[in-house]
Structures are given as structure tokens and as C-alpha cells.
């Protein structure tokens, strides 16, 4: 994980719940479904996002969080829940 503090401009205090909700809303729009149908314990893999969509989501999340996200950390934190907890706990 690379936390590029020099470029940080966003609110660093987003909670795991806020991050999780953001991801679920994003995926729901991408999959044209309701946020309620998305299980936070599901892996990103299970949504079959193509790589361009995955990179796009990471980019939008970086803009929202105001920090760099290494896209490869998803291998270590493969579910929405784990990924959100990791990002919230990471300073």
C-alpha cells in the first residue's frame, strides 16, 4: 500500500462504513442493481469487473479519499468489507 501523503487533499477521516457504502453504491451503479443486493462480505472478484472498470473505480476512490491507493492491495483484502476496513485504518 502506498499512502502518498504529499498529494493528499481529501478528508482523511472517512470511516470504514462510509468507505463501504461508497464502494457498494459504486458497484450497484456499475451493475445496475440496488445497493441492498450487494453483500459487503463478497469479493470484488465475484462482480466480474473488467480491469478498466476496476482501475476506474480505484481512481474515483482516490479522488474521493484524497490519497493514492495501490490497486494490488485488493489481493490482500479481497472483500468489500476487508478493503474498506483496511483503507479506514490506514493513516
Amino acid at each position, binding site marked *: 500500500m502506498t499512502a502518498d501523503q504529499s498529494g493528499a487533499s481529501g478528508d482523511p477521516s472517512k470511516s470504514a462504513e462510509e468507505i463501504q457504502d461508497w464502494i457498494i453504491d459504486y458497484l450497484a451503479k456499475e451493475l445496475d442493481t440496488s445497493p441492498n443486493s450487494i453483500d459487503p462480505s463478497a469479493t470484488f*472478484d465475484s462482480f466480474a469487473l473488467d480491469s478498466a472498470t476496476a482501475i476506474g473505480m480505484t481512481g474515483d476512490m482516490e479522488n474521493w479519499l484524497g490519497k493514492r491507493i495501490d490497486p494490488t492491495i485488493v489481493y490482500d483484502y479481497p472483500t468489500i468489507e476487508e478493503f474498506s476496513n483496511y483503507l479506514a485504518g490506514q493513516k
Partner: protein
Amino acid sequence: MIQLSTKPFPLPRPARRLEIGSSDLHLWRISADDGLPYVDRLHKSLSEAEQLRASKFFRDEHAQQFVIYHAGLRDILARYLGVAPIEITYQASSFGKPNVISGQAGQLKFNLTHSSQLAVVAVAVDAEVGVDIEEVRKIRSFASMIDRCLSDAERKDICVHQEADRHRQFLRFWTHKEAYLKTIGVGLQAPLDRVTVDLQAPDSRKVVNHFHVFPKEPTVRLMELAPCEGFVGAVGSTHDESPEIKTFGWVSGRCG
């Protein structure tokens, strides 16, 4: 531009092993629509880990595509190796690019890509291969994607195109870059804006700027693919000379 065959592959398996020489590059097209009637049977040719993965998809459609593409890949590789599809085992490299480990498979290299209803498998021996296809579509957060994924020269090229063509042009760059990174085996961990691709250059000189961590040798040839209407694609390989390309249409009904 390589046009992919939709003609069914004529040899029923396992008549004999499919030959491939070190100067050859084989490209197989797998259509999800064609495989759909056989999905239950194809499911049985997957490993337990693949079956588990197939059971986890949010959408049935994606699970079915996964089954068809991965069963197709096994069947295709099995034709070269002279083994049953189920006997094939994979081992991932340190960056996650899978290789086959079974019997004489050491020199057989392959790469799978899929987008929507279509998958393509590239196969070679003694040369690394990487392939990528994308269905042409509108890219979400397009401005930010251009910033993140394209070099300065590529951004200028995009601007020359009509607004309506920009998403397609972006995906041409994207597939070439991804084919290159898959060929050298690093995948999308690489900073995409640090690699420049020249779509007009000859195949062996399309990658004009490597990020300094990438090896200059061997040279990666990048060839544009025309998978079918509405898709763009590219295939990379480390063949010394332009490879002899053969294309095949994979027919799931003949599998197993």
C-alpha cells in the same frame, strides 16, 4: 490487423495432438453464446477451485461465462499436451500470470482474455504471450482514466479523434498496453501512464517507452486484433521474428 476465425475447429479431440512450432502463434476465439447450451457439461471439466470460484459470482451470466472460458482454455491446452482437460494444473508466477504444470507443458505458454461475450486464448511455445480484448463501450470517469492510463503522447493522439471515437481509441491503447504488460508478466501493477504505445509503428516497435523497471529485452511484438464487430484487442509475443499466426474458433459442443 489479425482477424479472428469464427470457423469451427475441425479436429475432434482426441484424434491427435495439435502441433505448434516455436515460430507459431495460435489464437483461439471462444464465444460464450456458443458455449451456453453445454455449460453444465463444461462445469465438470473444471478444477474444484474453479468450480468454487464459479459458484461465487454475483450474476449467473458471469458465472456461466467463467465456466465456458475456463473449460474452453483447459480443452484448448489439452489438445497440445495430449492430456485430459481436467488433468491440467496451473501455477501462477510471482506476478500472478499462470503457467501450465503437467508433463511436457514447460515450454507451452498461453494467455487468456475475456470481455463480455467473447474470450481469446493465445498459445505459443518458447515465447511469452499476452493478449487483451475489450468490448467497445463508454468508459466511466473518462477524463480521469485518460490521465491515469495514458502517456502525454497518447493523450494528444486521443484529442485528435472525434469525440465519438475517443472511447474506442482509448480502448485500443488500453488493450495494447495490457497485452504488453501481460506478455512480460507484470499485469496492471505497472504504472500505465509510464508506458507509451505507438499504434502506427511496426509490431516490434509499438512499445516506444518502457518504464525503467521493465526489461528492454526481449522485444515484445504487439499486433492489433480484430476479435469481432464491436471489440478491439491486441496480442503481444516475444518471438524473434514475426510469428506465423493461425486462428481457430473453439467449439464447446465437441469438448469432453
